[in-house]
């Protein structure tokens, strides 16, 4: 190989690249991309020690994360699509003085033949459906990432259709980004960024501005957006396991406070999130510690109210149940559960709840009013039922007068039986439907 054809990638002659076949276009993979390629590794004497070709499957790895030997990361990052090249790696960019016995001796120079097959961005979405895609523009060798509750400092720049719609420095506690207008997709991506890293994050609508879009930023409904983010700093998250019971209680109270602040701002989702954190942080001493019990009751009660405000009456009812399990004569919880029951049309339960409130607080006018409403509704519903049944009986009576249908087949013999087609369709549906619990 003539030396002049070799490109020095490391600057010290440690990693030399010789192109065998030029690739297409000008683009090369960014750090963090998943790269697919074929490689064959040989020692200087020509002994093949490793090859993806032999395994009959391309080799895949996330670029620039140190998963492979240094020279490999370095060389692959410079390759274009379809490019073929030789990579000569000095020992300090490969296995060094130790080697990798028995195949690679100490201080071995390695020669790789590479063929780039393709790359794709890193999918950070929880469902791995491509809705949050990261490309690392500037990697960082630091390894700390934000965790729940940790302080985050970052610079974000959002673009839509080539126009920048926001460009600002942000500071928030991880998990509460929504309060300062950080879209969910961005917050999810930030969790996996190292301090000092700059990345481009492509976010699909469901993790960005959703079906509503954003008027202020002139983003139409269901639009994908792109952010460039630099994570400037982040603290360590709350280390729950290290906390004593007193510390847990204090920390829980802080989250309760946060929840109340979001509640005042009518941000129900974040309020619920904070209250839930408070609930989870509380020590398991509600039976013996009156203060813990008090905070727990208040937290469940507040979550119930938040759910009510966001029209999730069923969830609200569950929270009221939790309160009442701790304190069965909690008037607030009984009243709220009554309201939920009323909304979801569990009228008798609602009536029972309100009546119990009056029993506990005979002068509670609001509950008395609700009792009247409940009774009224119950009456209406009974009347409705009566009418319905009356209609049914009238119709049935009319039908009876008609001539009896001819008894061609025994109806019972077909009861519960599927035709072959029905059975096949049902079985296929059952077998292919996701999230079905087979009994």
């Amino acid at each position: 190989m003539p030396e002049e054809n070799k490109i020095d990638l490391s600057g010290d002659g440690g990693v030399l690249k010789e192109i065998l076949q030029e690739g297409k276009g000008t683009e090369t993979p960014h750090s963090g991309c998943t790269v697919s390629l074929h490689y064959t590794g040989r020692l200087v004497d020509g002994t093949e020690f490793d090859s993806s070709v032999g395994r009959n499957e391309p080799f895949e790895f996330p670029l620039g994360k140190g998963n492979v030997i240094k020279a490999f990361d370095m060389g692959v990052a410079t390759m274009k699509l379809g490019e073929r090249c030789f990579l000569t790696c000095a020992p300090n960019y490969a296995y060094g003085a130790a080697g990798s016995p028995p195949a690679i001796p100490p201080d071995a120079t390695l020669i790789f033949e590479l063929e780039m097959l393709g790359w794709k961005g890193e999918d950070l979405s929880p469902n791995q459906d491509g809705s949050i895609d990261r490309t690392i523009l500037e990697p960082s060798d630091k390894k700390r990432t934000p965790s729940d509750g940790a302080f985050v400092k970052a610079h974000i720049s959002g673009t839509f259709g080539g126009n920048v719609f926001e460009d600002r420095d942000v500071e928030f506690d991880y998990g509460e980004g929504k309060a300062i207008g950080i879209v969910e997709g961005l917050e999810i991506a930030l969790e996996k960024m190292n301090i000092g890293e700059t990345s481009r994050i492509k976010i699909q609508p469901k993790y960005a501005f959703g079906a509503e879009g954003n008027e202020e930023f002139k983003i139409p409904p269901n639009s994908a957006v792109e952010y460039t983010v630099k994570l400037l700093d982040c603290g360590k998250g709350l280390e729950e396991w290290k906390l004593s019971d007193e510390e847990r209680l204090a920390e829980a109270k802080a989250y309760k406070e946060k929840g109340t602040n979001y509640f005042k701002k009518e941000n129900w989702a974040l309020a619920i999130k904070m209250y839930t954190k408070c609930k989870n942080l509380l020590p398991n001493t509600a039976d013996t510690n009156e203060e813990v019990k008090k905070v727990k009751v208040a937290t469940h009660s507040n979550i119930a109210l938040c759910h009510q405000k966001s029209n999730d009456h069923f969830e609200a009812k569950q929270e009221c149940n939790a309160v009442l399990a701790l304190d069965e004569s909690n008037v607030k919880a009984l009243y709220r559960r009554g309201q939920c029951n009323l909304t979801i049309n569990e009228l008798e339960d609602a009536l029972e709840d309100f009546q119990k409130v009056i029993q506990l607080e005979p002068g509670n006018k609001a509950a008395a009013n609700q009792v009247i409403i409940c009774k009224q509704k119950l009456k209406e519903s009974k009347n409705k039922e009566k009418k319905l049944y009356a209609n049914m009986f009238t119709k049935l009576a009319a039908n009876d007068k008609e001539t009896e249908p001819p008894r061609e087949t025994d109806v019972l013999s077909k009861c519960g039986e599927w035709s072959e087609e029905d059975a096949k369709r049902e079985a296929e549906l059952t077998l292919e439907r996701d999230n079905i619990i087979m009994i």
Partner: protein
Amino acid sequence: MQEQEMEVDMADAVEASNLLQLIKQLLLEKAYDGVRMLFESAQESERNTRLLPHIAMHLYHDVCSENLSDEVNSQEPELFDCSDELLKLLAKFAPLQELMLELMERLEESSSLNVFGAHLRALQVVLQRQGRDKPQAVEWSLQSVFTRLRELPLPKYLSEGYDEAQARLIEQNEQVEDLLAHYITVGLFRQPLCSEILQHDVRAPSQTFKDCGLNRRNIFTCFFIQLLGRPLALLEMSHVKEDLTRTYVQQVTESLSQDASQCLGDPFYLLNLVEQRARWQRKLDAAKGVYEMSCRNVFLIEEKLPLHAVAMYYHSLFVGNQLPPNAPRIYAPLFLFESIVYLSEVLLKQQEPPLQYCGLRLVEHLLSTLGNPVLSSSLQLDVHKRFCEALCKIVGYSPQVALRQLGLHVLRQYVLVFDDQGKYLILKNLLETLQHDGLMGYLGGMYKDLVDKALEESGPLPEVYSGKLFREMLLLCVCVLPHDVKSDLLLHADRLCHALNILRYFAVRDKKDVTGFWQALPDIVRRLLDPLGKALNFSMAHYKAYKERVEKGQSASDDELMQRQLNMLAVNITNSGMAGGDGDSRLPDIGRQEKLEVLASSITSLETLQSLYLIASEKLEQSACLRRKAAQSDS
């Protein structure tokens, strides 16, 4: 034409019905060979096999389902065998989904290996017929198989841990034998399926990236790895290094991990996902359709691929030496190490000692393969902290002696694998957070050994072994008398012994004050030696007086202290695996003689500590004197 076809169908149906009656009649007459002849003889087999699709499910319900039971197997084994053969035969023709559902149910409920095996053979045929279609159905079938294995009864001691002698005899246990027989049967079941997958379910040349979705190959990969987890993993404590015996556990494990590796292609592929799984939790959100099972990458779903089973797979690859010869060699050693620390931590956190044991063996293996020191920057990963905590918990408090011993060895190797700064950071953090006295003493001693080694080498001492950092560490691990003069010396005896030895060592070894020891000495004297001297005198006087009172029968007021010491002793006994009970429970009141024995042992411990104290003080005095003389002669 259509009429003709219908007539033929009708005729077949009648013939099939007759065949069904004939089979039943033959079985009633116990003419099992006759039944076989129906499908084996040259004249009959073609016609009868053609009729089977018409009666397959009837045959299943009327014959196989009824006769494939333990009762029939014990009373009429020939009938059982015949039904077994019929089931395998009809599985080739029965409606796929219908039979699959039946088999799944029967597999989960099967009461013995024979019943399980019979249905598994049929499932094999069904899955072969199913091919690559409906992977979800395939997955559910495999889950039924796994459910059965998981629910097999096992001896309790497997979950509680066992020693080496028990481990050697583990396969003799009846329940274990049954479990292994089930695993071996599953091995026979999967072999043809695995070969078929490797042959047919391959990546198309146009497909650049691995498909991680729900497909047959991935489902089987998950199944193989899942099988390596519990309950099989509970038998892995019997895996003894360099043992020439090839146990059934090893054979089963090897064959499973080989199949998994073949299906994965690159056996390290899952390591790329380990951090993602162990470090970050998926944010489930029903409103956005994000559920546990909704992830498009099946390897990220805990229910499909439990992380402890993934760890066991790599345990088999590394510790069990099952890495395929063509496995990639381009992964960076640091990446392998960090990924294995994640997995090892998962195992160490499990309740069952056998899994903890595997976690230790796994990380021990990786540590032995690392050629270059690991840079301290790796410690920014939170997993190191969690790993150390889990490891120290085992070293300090596991009731299994073997685990504690191996744990301590691993802890030592783990600390030593880092560069100097890394070693220092780990030791310092552990000394700051640990509560276990003996372990803290050991770690302090380890730091002393590291400084000793550094002193032997030429050139300046690394900054973590001298000056400010040395002083910080020394004050942290040596000069600690938790409650000043009032400290319970017996409770902290281990740590204090180590501390005094360290002082003695530096007094002798570092007369030139390369480390900065002599500059720190005044602090050490103030914070440790002075109060310790007083505490020793107090304690000794107290115990001697107590002993005297016991001898005279006047000790009631001191009994609480005695009880505390006995409880401490009970914890130690529990740790050594000698006691079966709960270490926290209070011991019953003891008699005068026993009290005297406990007191005598306490006094001996204090005397040992006192003699160490005196030796250390003497050495310090001597060396200080030598240093003064040397300084005078220099000046």
